[in-house]
């Protein structure tokens, strides 16, 4: 049943991808992009559908509404092209941004298959057994699947200490999806769907990095992300939202980079859909999605109406959030961190004095490869700014990273002092960082790591085989040849 849940999710995502790129994704962008983006977009579809169904007070059990729509999308994705032509979607004249690198993509695919085997073998034994799983994510997912609606006692139940009532519903929706397809609470199914999001991100990153920076960047990016401390385990094997959030946000940032570098407007459409998914995972997702979109607004692709297109993508993301925001506000639910109490001038004046402490705590708790990763990224940026062709990509990555870090810094500063009647603010801040920083700072940490393959990878000369022509004598071997992307740039 888990396989059926996963396949239906991927096929629904494939349909959305086909609608967005207006071509057969497999033919236009290859296996890695199609598989990775389909999984992520399928999860976004299930998350959004369940959310909208829930706020409309319709049944959230899978077979009532969400399941039939997902199945219809899955089938639609395989209908002949003339069906899509009959939909009269707006024409798209630009060519898909494709660089066929069979060997490089194959290596990336092999690494992802190996990681998938490691993560999925024995996944039937995975259970819900840690605090945030039962207190937040699985609790909400089980209520959607078992109660079959947004039970006000749970989703508005602040008095009974139900946690983070403002968090959006993508992860609980996936849990409910796995339960619904299985016909009973299915811990293993929920884990598998979330693991697939991680693998989907790796596929998108490997494909995009190969396209952006040549054949060494893909495998290097995938290994760097997979090796990020705590990402595969424990976080990737728990029913948490942090790794799914990283999956959507990192895929979004890379697809936006594809648009900026290649000007393929289809990539911006896909990025808009990924931004919708990013914002639907967790509150911090809005910060990360806006970081990518704001950076793309400052450094847009060199196409007509580029900034207008980015604004449209951002508007799509914000519009997608409105039903959930309206429902939570209508029921007096606010964020635990950024809310009417923490956004008052008096509170902001009080906590401004802790800005420096928050910076020091970010430095102390920085996850991933720590400051070695940052040093490598800085070195890659220094190398890349000397190359005119790479300056736009460099500026985009640096801006997106900076906005994401500043956003997280602001969140920690503003939310300080919530429990000052009980504990001193510095103690509270240290506790808050200790319990959350290695998870919520994952995205900027991964972006910093990716700067190395994306920027330095573009400068590495490419090893190629000599071209042999049947009509000519044997060609002299030229073992080192310049990567085509690096030619005539310095």
């Amino acid at each position: 049943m888990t396989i059926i849940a996963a396949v239906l999710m991927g096929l629904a995502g494939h349909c959305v991808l086909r609608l967005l790129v207006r071509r057969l994704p497999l033919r236009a962008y290859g296996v890695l992009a199609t598989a990775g983006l389909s999984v992520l977009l399928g999860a976004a579809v299930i998350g959004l559908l369940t959310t909208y169904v829930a706020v409309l007070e319709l049944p959230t059990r899978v077979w009532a509404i969400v399941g039939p729509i997902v199945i219809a999308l899955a089938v639609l994705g395989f209908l002949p092209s003339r069906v899509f032509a009959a939909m009269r979607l707006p024409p798209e004249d630009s060519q898909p941004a494709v660089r066929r690198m069979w060997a490089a993509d194959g290596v990336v695919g092999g690494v992802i298959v190996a990681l998938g085997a490691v993560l999925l073998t024995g996944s039937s034994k995975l259970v819900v057994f840690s605090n945030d799983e039962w207190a937040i994510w699985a609790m909400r997912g089980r209520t959607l699947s078992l109660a079959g609606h947004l039970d006000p006692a749970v989703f508005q139940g602040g008095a009974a200490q139900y946690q983070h009532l403002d968090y959006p519903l993508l992860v609980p929706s996936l849990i409910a999806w796995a339960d619904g397809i299985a016909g009973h609470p299915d811990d293993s199914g929920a884990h598998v769907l979330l693991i697939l999001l991680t693998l989907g991100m790796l596929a998108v990153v490997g494909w995009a990095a190969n396209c952006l920076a040549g054949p060494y960047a893909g495998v290097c990016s995938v290994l760097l992300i997979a090796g990020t401390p705590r990402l595969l385990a424990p976080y990737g094997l728990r029913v948490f939202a942090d790794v799914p959030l990283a999956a959507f946000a990192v895929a979004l940032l890379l697809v936006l980079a594809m648009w900026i570098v290649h000007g393929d407007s289809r990539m911006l459409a896909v990025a808009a859909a990924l931004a919708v998914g990013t914002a639907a995972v967790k509150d911090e997702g809005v910060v990360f999605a806006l970081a990518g979109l704001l950076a793309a607004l400052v450094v847009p692709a060199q196409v007509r109406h580029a900034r207008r297109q980015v604004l449209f993508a951002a508007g799509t993301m914000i519009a997608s959030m409105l039903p959930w925001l309206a429902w939570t506000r209508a029921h007096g639910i606010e964020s635990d961190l950024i809310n009417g109490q923490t956004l008052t001038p008096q509170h902001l004046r009080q906590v401004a004095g802790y800005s420096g402490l928050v910076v020091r705590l970010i430095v102390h708790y920085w996850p991933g490869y720590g400051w070695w990763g940052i040093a490598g990224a800085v070195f890659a940026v220094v190398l890349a700014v000397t190359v005119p062709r790479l300056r736009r990509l460099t500026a985009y990555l640096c801006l997106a990273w900076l906005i994401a870090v500043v956003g997280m810094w602001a969140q920690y500063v503003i939310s300080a002092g919530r429990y000052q009647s009980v504990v001193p603010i510095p103690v509270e801040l240290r506790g808050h960082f200790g319990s959350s920083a290695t998870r919520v700072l994952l995205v900027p940490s991964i972006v910093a790591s990716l700067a190395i393959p994306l920027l330095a990878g573009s400068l590495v000369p490419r090893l190629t085989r000599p071209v042999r022509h049947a009509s000519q004598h044997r060609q002299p071997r030229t073992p080192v040849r310049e990567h085509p992307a690096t030619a005539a740039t310095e």
Partner: protein
Amino acid sequence: MRNALRSGAAALVLAALIAGLVASIHGAHNAREEIATQAALPRVDGRVDIFHSAEQTRFVRFVVDHVPAHDRVRIVMPPPTRVTDQRTICGRMPLVARYWVLVYELAPRASVCDSSARWVVYFGVPPPPGGTVYRFTSNYAVVRL
């Protein structure tokens, strides 16, 4: 200059590749350990003993068997011996981590504080006299209001 740039870039990518390879092998190893740890979690009657107490885990099954799925419950637990969290639930201060486990295990029977509760779950606390008491042990019982 160009050669130095490319050499620097190649060295950086090679270092990142090696670091990523080593770290991802380490991550994969951790993942296998995590899966093995979860597979080896102690079980009571086939269910994971997430309370680390066979009595409490069996009591949850007892409650689930007695309380209809869509009825609401009020939970009464003993206060923690050491206060690490100042949160109160229904005017009491329980050990919140254990409370959340119990609430999760009882889903979709929502935990409430108001009069919509049709049952009271006494988890580690003897129930007072009155009401229809379904007693599991002296300190674990569910009372129909």
